């Protein structure tokens, strides 16, 4: 069943990803991005990352995408106007991207031959308990630095969104 679910949600993720890139209207792109994030959350669950899957749904699909959609509605952003692109972008864009993907694929191929296959339930170290234990013992300093980062982001957002700027 693992292969079936992987293929199902991988297909959904790739189709929604293509939709993010191709949709002309930002709201349609944002809703496609929610689809990508939801299917990636299911894949996290299959990889044994329960806590990360829930955090993905709550933080990404819940909080960040709502922020995006608020901003799109606030700015009343319409469909993108089609513009003439430079001939180099039209001619070379897609081949260069395919070459980029081929380089990543080449770097990956044959490197994971002897590795055990992923099956649901063969790794149970991703519970909230395990993640919390690692976060508050081995990774305590990065965790505390993160709180400073968030404080800076809050102050930055407030300063930028002031009326008189």
């Amino acid at each position, binding site marked *: 069943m693992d292969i079936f679910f992987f293929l199902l949600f991988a297909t959904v993720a790739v189709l929604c990803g293509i939709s993010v890139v191709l949709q002309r209207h930002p709201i349609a792109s944002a809703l496609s991005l929610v689809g990508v994030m939801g299917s990636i959350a299911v894949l996290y669950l299959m990889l044994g990352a329960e806590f990360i899957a829930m955090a993905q749904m709550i933080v990404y699909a819940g909080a960040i995408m709502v922020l995006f959609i608020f901003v799109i509605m606030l700015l009343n952003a319409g469909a993108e106007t089609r513009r003439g692109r430079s001939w180099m972008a039209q001619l070379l864009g897609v081949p260069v991207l395919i070459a980029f993907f081929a380089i990543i694929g080449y770097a990956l191929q044959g490197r994971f031959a002897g590795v055990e296959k*992923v099956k649901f339930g063969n790794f149970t170290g991703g519970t909230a308990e395990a993640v919390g234990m690692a976060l508050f013992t081995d990774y305590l300093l990065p965790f505390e630095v993160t709180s400073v980062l968030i404080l800076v982001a809050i102050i930055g957002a407030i300063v930028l969104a002031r009326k008189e700027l």
Partner: protein
Amino acid sequence: MPEGLQSAATTLNAGVPISWYLILSAILFTLGVAGFLFRRNIITVFMCIELMLNAVNLSFVAFANMHKQVGGHIFTFFVMVVAAAEAAVGLAIILTVFKNRDTLNIDEINTLKN
């Protein structure tokens, strides 16, 4: 049970190779790069950055599963935190730019050029 049905059942229960997850991650990352380079709306460009971050997170979690260690999950957690901070500040910048320039097209936001 017939021979063919049994082999089909074994294939279904075999599990997913780790490289499939990494290839999926590469596909999503390439899509994010494509959107980042080709789109002209600044909000869509920003969403494509989120797509790239998600693709990298997927490969982190896949490697965590491969090594049976929780470290990859911690990295994913930190990437999520940084993405949230980045979204808050970035969208505030977009709001300010729109207030001052009245456009979302990145071709027209070129004050720093030349």
